[in-house]
């Protein structure tokens, strides 16, 4: 199979080099056009913060991995990235690599199911730009099936593996229904923003944000439909919130034990969760001594993250087994796209139908005509199959294996030859 793949990722290049070749959504379309102009017939372009990958079927046999890499570097005008920053895959290895990416076992955060969605999006992009042909379709279908199986049959994507998500997971172990709870996020930097987003996604009842720079808080609040509390006043409103997540860069403690004690009194001892995900810490750690207060800092949240990561790592062999199974299935299908077996299967199918009909109807003919019936139907069948057989032989002799596989694949699909055999097996 003439499938080439190149990958620059978190293992092969530091972030500044990955950034240099990162293709934004609005860059992918022009890049695909550029690739098509340069003999890339069909393919898939996947670009995320951790990886940029190109899978392609070249239009001619002279196209190499190096050529694809140079196309990308030329398109992005990247100077510092070298060939050494790329991993290269060919044929079965390329398909296997795509499956590994789709299942998340190749990700920086093992089991990250965000990448599964990104693979789907990249294929949609290829389709919209007329860059996904028959073979790539099948590769993609198999990759998606593999990704789905990994998610449903293993625990590769279970549990929180980021601190901000672990904070949300922990709140769900204390409160049963986040839609009836209110949260306050102190600090709207990157970490605070992610935590606020997670809370919003989980359907928090009401969300408020506060930040030293009011503008930033307002921007985030607008995005998440949250309230803004002026930074100077947030202490007075602590009691109104069931969950407080703090992620500022403040060098001193922002929320003291007394602040929390007072808030708890006003709340009639309704439980409060305090998540301090800042360094240095924003909330006095002594608040953990207060009953009905659940205080957690980065260290405690990291325990959850580490535990979940080890659980996910333990699932990798199961996912690899699924990948091997799907790879074998895919390869079985791909090997059926050879000319000789396809011709034989096609003729067998026609012969089976002819034979069945002759057997069913021969009693309607006089006994001396029954032999003629056999001969005539065989002749009709041979005439119908003559042209397709010649075409299939020609396809087998052509130097473009992808073209020939595509033709044979379409014929198999049209007459249901492959699927018929598979269902017989099952």
């Amino acid at each position, binding site marked *: 199979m003439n499938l080439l793949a190149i990958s620059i990722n978190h293992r092969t290049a530091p972030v500044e080099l990955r950034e240099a070749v990162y293709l934004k959504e609005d860059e992918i379309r022009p890049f695909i056009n550029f690739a098509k102009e340069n003999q890339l017939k069909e393919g898939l372009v996947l670009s995320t913060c951790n990886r940029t990958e190109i899978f392609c079927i070249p239009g001619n046999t002279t196209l190499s991995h190096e050529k694809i890499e140079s196309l990308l570097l030329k398109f992005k005008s990247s100077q510092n990235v070298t060939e050494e920053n790329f991993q290269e895959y060919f044929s079965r290895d390329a398909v296997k690599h795509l499956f590994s990416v789709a299942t998340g076992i190749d990700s920086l955060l093992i089991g990250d199911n965000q990448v599964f969605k990104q693979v789907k999006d990249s294929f949609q992009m290829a389709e919209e730009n007329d860059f996904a042909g028959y073979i790539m379709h099948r590769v993609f279908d198999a990759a998606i099936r593999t990704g789905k199986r990994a998610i449903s049959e293993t625990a590769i994507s279970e549990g929180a593996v980021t601190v901000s998500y672990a904070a949300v997971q922990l709140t769900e172990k204390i*409160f*049963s229904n986040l839609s009836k709870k209110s949260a306050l996020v102190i600090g709207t930097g990157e970490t605070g923003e992610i935590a606020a987003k997670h809370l919003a996604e989980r359907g928090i009842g009401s969300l408020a944000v506060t930040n030293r720079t009011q503008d930033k808080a307002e921007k985030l609040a607008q995005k998440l439909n949250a309230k803004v509390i002026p930074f100077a006043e947030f202490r007075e409103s602590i009691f109104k919130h069931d969950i407080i997540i703090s992620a500022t860069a403040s060098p001193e403690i922002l929320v003291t034990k007394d602040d929390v004690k007072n808030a708890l009194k006003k709340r009639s*001892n309704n439980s409060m969760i305090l998540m301090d995900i800042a360094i240095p810490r924003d909330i006095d750690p002594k608040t*953990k001594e207060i009953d*009905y207060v659940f205080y957690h800092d980065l260290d*405690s949240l990291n325990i959850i993250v580490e535990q979940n990561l080890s659980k996910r790592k333990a699932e990798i062999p199961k996912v690899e087994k699924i990948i091997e199974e799907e790879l074998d299935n895919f390869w079985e299908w791909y090997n059926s796209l050879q000319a000789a077996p396809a011709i034989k299967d096609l003729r067998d199918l026609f012969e089976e139908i002819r034979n069945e009909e002759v057997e069913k109807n021969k009693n309607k003919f006089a006994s001396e005509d029954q032999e003629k019936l056999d001969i005539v139907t065989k002749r009709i069948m041979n005439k119908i199959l003559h042209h397709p057989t010649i075409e299939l032989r020609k396809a087998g002799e052509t130097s473009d294996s992808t073209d020939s596989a595509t033709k044979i694949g379409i014929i198999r699909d049209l007459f249901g030859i492959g699927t018929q055999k598979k269902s017989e097996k099952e």
Partner: protein
Amino acid sequence: MISGIHTINILLPILYLATFVVYFYDFLKGEKKLVNIKRVFLFITLFLHLIYIVLRTIAFDHPPITNVFEIFTILAITISFSYFLVELVSDIRGTGPFIIILSFIFQLISSLYIQDLTEVKEVLRSNLLGTHVISALLGYSGFTISAVYGFLYLILYKDIKLNKFGLIFNRLPNLEVLERLSLYSAVIGFIALTIAIIIGIIWLPVAFPKFSYLDPKLIGSTLVWLLYAIGITSKYLGNWRGKRLVLLSISGFLVAIISTILSNFIAQSFHSFY
């Protein structure tokens, strides 16, 4: 029929133990495919237990509520049946082994000491006694389940506070759910015990000439009733919640156990019939 009853009597603790083992294994492993298997185990056990009670009632001409070992078998089935309903309605997993183990213990004691009594005191054949005992048992089952959920609440509460994120953290439902389950079980238990006490007050002076309001079991039950009344009222008045409430539930359960032991095994009471 008698030999059938004896066979089921031996089988029941084994079945409760097997159900407990399946539930506990699921608690350790958390595999999705075990969900239905464990429910089948519990269902079969409960079904056989129901047959056992019906057979005993027919064979010995009275429902098995006339002495503590007969009552234990009823407690075993009511506790597990209540849990079965909770699991079906709420789809809450992970708490089963902690409740089914109690059914196992009650059934084991019952199976070991239960006797084939065909003759019981005439007073124990009263319909009012049946209602009194069944509502009291429902009450105590409710308190038992409430205490188990309360106990699980305390363990999870402590684990979260101390950053212990092990099996308990991963398998148990969240604190609010545990608190709610503990409260609802206590409320159901409280209503049932109230009915038992009302019937008792009406019926006891009529049935027992030696009746005394200073009877240890009566004092114990009243104390238990008062504890739960305080807890439930405090909850609904909005002051008590969480840890304080479940501690009260556990205390109520302990008082109930102590009062049962004292009145049944140590003190002389008109409540003891064997």
